[in-house]
């Protein structure tokens, strides 16, 4: 008999997961989260501020520890993973980029491969690959420092760095949140291109409905620490769930204000 479990093992799985800041604090940030994310899916986690979407993301690479239930990566609970191995296998992109100001673009991007002990040639080639993926000229930008880049360029470098060690999973927390609308849609295109080519499991957190619908192969809506909807972008907009209708309604109101 072949082993069917290996094929169907989700890349990331939440099993009735709960998270609260401390055991004494009864208010939970997340509760009863059950979610299976398959290999290669691009899941856009949508929600307002305080809906728990960033916490959800951080439970995956164990920046935060779940309080109840379980979180599995590659079929293994994150609490059983070696923390360093788990994190090196997961790319992480945040809004403020977190680029190291004392390192050049190249040093930033090549850091994880270097920590992983890749041979120098392989790291160098990989640097050119990921810079091409995010649409930056490796020779031109490699020697610059983060402070010498624009916001959009920094964000591209942040994505390149997250991809450098070729992780299977990419976590992105409002990666385009701090950018102006033009740069933002430019980077969304880069992301769309890239997400099709690299074939990685991606979890992207955003509060922007249009961004979620554009970039996700699935949209998950969080409200008050619960998953209230999970559907493909096409189905998501048709859902009757009140929380979904409300989110769409308020988003359209906001869209109406911007030309």
């Amino acid at each position, binding site marked *: 008999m072949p082993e069917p479990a290996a094929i169907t093992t989700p890349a990331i799985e939440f099993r009735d997961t709960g998270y609260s800041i401390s055991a004494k604090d009864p208010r939970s940030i997340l509760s009863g989260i059950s979610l299976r994310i398959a290999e290669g899916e691009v899941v856009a986690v949508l929600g307002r501020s305080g809906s728990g979407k960033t916490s959800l993301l951080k439970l995956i690479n164990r920046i935060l520890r779940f309080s109840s239930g379980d979180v599995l990566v590659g079929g293994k609970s994150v609490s059983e993973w070696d923390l360093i191995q788990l994190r090196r296998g997961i790319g992480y992109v*945040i809004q403020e980029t*977190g680029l190291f100001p004392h390192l050049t673009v190249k040093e930033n991007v090549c850091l994880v491969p270097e920590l992983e002990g890749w041979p120098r040639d392989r790291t160098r080639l990989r640097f050119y690959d990921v810079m091409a993926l995010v649409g930056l000229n490796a020779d031109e930008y490699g020697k610059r420092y983060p402070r010498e880049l624009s916001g959009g360029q920094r964000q591209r470098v942040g994505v390149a760095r997250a991809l450098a060690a070729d992780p299977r999973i990419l976590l992105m927390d409002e990666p385009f949140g701090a950018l102006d609308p033009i740069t933002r849609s430019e980077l969304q295109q880069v992301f769309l291109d890239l997400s099709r080519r690299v074939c990685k499991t991606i979890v992207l957190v955003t509060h922007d409905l249009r961004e979620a619908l554009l970039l996700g192969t699935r949209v998950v809506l969080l409200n008050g620490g619960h998953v209230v909807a999970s559907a493909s972008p096409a189905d998501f907009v048709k859902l009757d769930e009140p929380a979904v209708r409300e989110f769409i309604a308020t988003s359209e109101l906001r869209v109406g204000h911007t030309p």
Partner: protein
Amino acid sequence: MSLWTFFSSHRQEILAAIQQHLFLVGVSMLIAIAVSVPLGILIVSRPRLRALALAVANIFQTIPSLALFGFLIPLPILGGIGAQTAIVALVLYAILPILRNTYVGLTSIDPSILEAAVAMGMTENQVMFRVRLPLAKSFILAGIRTATVITIGIATIAAAIGAGGLGTFIFRGVAMVSNAVILAGAIPAAILALLADYLLGFLERRWRIN
């Protein structure tokens, strides 16, 4: 006796005093740095040791320097008359500014940078030595600069316990009621302090990120 004639007739003596002074300050600073920077690294993740270390360093800072020199004289091993006792006292004064700046520099790093470092799978040591320490470099140097300038000044008092240095002229001048003799010690000490301040300040600006 004019200042100028005193300077020219005692040139050798003044140069020797400057040399002694630099020796006292140099050795004290090296020891203080060797103690404070590693200690500053240790207390980042050890809150109890942090409270203790900062409190002790603070207490030494509040003891008047002449009194501290006096306290040290009767102590075995560390104490006695001469340069060794002076160096112990100067180290005790220099620790606080370096320790505090090291600690502040290591802990005032943009949280998003630390989060990225942790999320990349850096070990605690890697975060310390590849991220925190390089980013704290100019802070630490600022602490060393403050400590050096203070130490150059306090080292003049070391002459009171027979450690030599530029303070010798100041104490002698006070005893002789001679401004020229006092200035023969005070002016070179001030110049040394300004020079140290300028040179370390220059380095600090070059090391600063952004």
